[in-house]
């Protein structure tokens, strides 16, 4: 009996919630209560899991009593439990935000009743992918979250959403097929799909086969994580979805892909065979992504491009395959999930307040709604990596690891990272100048709500307090602002507690590169862990 015995609950509780909310489809109040309660419970459970592996150690549980190389195992280690906690916290905040939005709009124009079950299924899929110790179960986790995301992406079935949804579904299905092909080939080559068992057996294959399997997995996960040449689909499809959906997609879905790449690189295929190509790809992801962001005038699209660009930082960190680099990447993933989601939530609020999310039309928000300005400013500066905030700390860790590695390519990436950070600041400053500081009269086609007399402000920010508010849609409902505020505070908390968090991610990186704790937890203590093909510490020579 170990703590991992409770790990399946992280998947089962959201699925149970989905079933309950589906039954309660006609009772929206009960639906809201059930989904928020179950998600909070899941978050508490995951916090407990994280606390129990905080000092190190890995625990595994075999589902249904089938022993590891044959049955499915769920593995709790520091990395997976950290990801679980951050993702659940973020999805809880987004859920509250979405219910706030639904209440404010009166649930009239969209089939919101299926939002809750689908959303909980999405959370279950994400948890399953993070916990899975079995390659096929990872595939199933991906499919669960993807299928839920198809529904959320096309919620309401309007023209633009269907158009974006088609691209998204086709690209995702192709990447899933690639992943499945990789699984079939791996099974054909080794006769197992348990990840710990694979870590033992993949080393015995000849180099050519290993490289083929490795590249197949990297391409399949690269599409999901939106790494540069495979990132074309993301900025087209994310911005059209409803604001909370975009926020949770941006925060979680690509990070599940990054998580899978980290596992592939550390557990299945250690060594530095593909480190140089990964670094080149990381550099291109960062620079091309942020250049795309500079061309956009829609805030949501701009943020989608910065999302792609910052995936490059994580790939950079893991491509170094050093403890410092991987640790910083783990920290960066946790930071980026929180920040990117809160920025998208704030953009949703901007869209409500100003009637548009295009920087050409939005203006004067700093005066109109100072709270909104603060909510945007903190995560925006955090994303750009301005010193005291966690974005700076994560980037600093990555740059230090890059300098420590000391190869020309690593220095190129360090330079690219700094450049990307500055360009992010430029893109964000453009939004800030136009949407918040510019006078409404200067905007190209300002929304009438911006030009209205300042007297309308009290009604706008105050919520639905007045009697006439029954008929007008409240512009900034308290629940939506509150959940966004909570997420911004979580982002600031990541800065305040960056010390312990950095230590945790460093430890988890060391454990992942060592592999023995993972393999021992799954297969038992008596197996001898094979050494990686090349020594990792001196791996940067090429």
């Amino acid at each position, binding site marked *: 009996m170990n703590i991992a015995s409770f790990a399946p609950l992280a998947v089962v509780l959201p699925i149970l919630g989905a079933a309950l909310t589906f039954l309660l489809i006609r009772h929206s109040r009960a639906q809201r209560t059930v989904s928020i309660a179950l998600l909070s419970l899941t978050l508490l459970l995951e916090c407990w899991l994280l606390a129990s592996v905080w000092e190190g150690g890995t625990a595994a549980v075999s589902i249904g009593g089938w022993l590891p190389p*044959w049955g499915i195992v769920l593995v709790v280690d520091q990395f997976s439990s950290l990801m679980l906690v951050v993702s659940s916290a973020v999805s809880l905040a987004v859920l509250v935000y979405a219910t706030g939005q639904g209440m404010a709009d009166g649930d009239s124009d969209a089939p919101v009743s299926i939002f809750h079950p689908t959303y909980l299924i999405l959370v279950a899929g994400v948890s399953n992918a993070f916990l899975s110790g079995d390659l*096929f179960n990872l595939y*199933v986790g991906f*499919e669960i979250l993807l*299928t839920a995301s*198809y*529904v959320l992406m*096309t919620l309401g*079935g309007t*023209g*633009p959403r*269907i*158009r*974006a*949804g*088609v*691209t998204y*579904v*086709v690209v995702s*299905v*192709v990447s*899933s*097929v690639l992943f*499945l*092909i990789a*699984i*079939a*080939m791996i*099974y*054909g080559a080794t006769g197992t*799909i348990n990840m710990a068992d694979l870590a033992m057996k993949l080393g015995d294959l000849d180099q050519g086969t290993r490289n083929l399997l490795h590249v197949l997995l990297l391409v399949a996960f690269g599409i999901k994580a939106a790494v540069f040449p495979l990132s074309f689909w993301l900025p*087209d499809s994310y*911005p059209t979805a409803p604001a909370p959906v975009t926020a949770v997609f941006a925060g979680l879905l690509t990070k599940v892909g990054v998580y899978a790449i980290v596992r592939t690189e550390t557990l299945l295929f250690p060594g530095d065979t593909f480190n140089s190509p990964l670094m080149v790809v990381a550099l291109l992801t960062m620079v091309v992504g942020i250049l795309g962001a500079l*061309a*956009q*005038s*829609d805030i949501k*699209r701009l943020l989608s491009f910065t999302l792609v660009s910052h995936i490059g930082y994580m790939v950079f960190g893991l491509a170094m395959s050093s403890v410092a680099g991987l640790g910083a990447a783990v920290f960066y993933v946790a930071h980026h999930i929180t920040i990117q989601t809160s920025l998208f939530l704030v953009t949703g609020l901007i869209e409500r307040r100003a009637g548009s999310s295009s920087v050409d*039309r939005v203006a004067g928000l700093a005066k109109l709604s100072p709270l909104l300005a603060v909510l945007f400013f903190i995560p925006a500066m955090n994303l750009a990596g301005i010193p005291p905030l966690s974005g700076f700390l994560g980037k600093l860790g990555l740059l230090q690891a890059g300098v420590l590695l000391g190869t020309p390519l690593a220095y190129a990436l360090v330079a690219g990272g700094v450049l990307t950070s500055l360009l992010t600041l430029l893109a964000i400053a453009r939004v800030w100048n*136009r949407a918040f500081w510019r*006078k409404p*009269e*200067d*905007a*190209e*086609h*300002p*929304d*009438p709500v911006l*030009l*209205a007399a300042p007297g309308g402000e009290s009604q706008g920010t105050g919520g639905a307090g007045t009697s006439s508010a029954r008929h007008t849609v409240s512009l900034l409902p308290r629940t939506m602002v509150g959940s966004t505020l909570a997420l911004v505070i979580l982002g600031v908390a990541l800065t305040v507690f960056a010390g312990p968090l950095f230590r945790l991610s460093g430890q988890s990186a060391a454990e992942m590169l060592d592999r023995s704790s993972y393999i021992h937890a799954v297969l038992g203590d008596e197996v001898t862990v094979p050494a990686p093909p090349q020594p990792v510490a001196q791996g940067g020579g090429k």
Partner: protein
Amino acid sequence: MSVNLTLLTVMGVLYACGIYLLLERSLTRVLLGLMLLANATNLLILTTGGYAGLAPLFAKDTDPGAYSDPLPQALILTSIVISFAVTAFMLGIIYRTWVLARQDEIQDDAEDLRVAETPSFDAEDDAVIPEETSEFPLPAVEPDAGGTILAGARQMPASEAAAEERPGSRTTAPNQEGGSE
């Protein structure tokens, strides 16, 4: 490991047709392509199990090597269910596209086209700011100074360029959407 050549050939043909169909612009063909790809992959998984053996029901006196490998079949079953769900969803989307747009084609992203057509010149960021030499405001550009100014990639009449310099003069015209004057 030995493999069945017939299965392998069928698989190859399915993959080829699937990828060909996937590259079409018509959504129904794309869907057919995805279905072919999924089925080809199922065959691939089946192939990894090796030649067919006995049904994997435990009997004491059977040699373990004589059984079929049950795991690939379990995997195929799962992947069939998943591709079934995705196919149904895709059909729904395609029908919805047809209802909305009366066409069965992949449409271009409107915002993509808009950004692609936007000139690199941005009136707000890049326009030449008229130098104020006197403390009195500059007179507006004379109406008859009909020359053209090179503004970024395009030529624009001087009067129009001047209008862009004076915020609010042109953009809040009553017929514009959102103008409130």
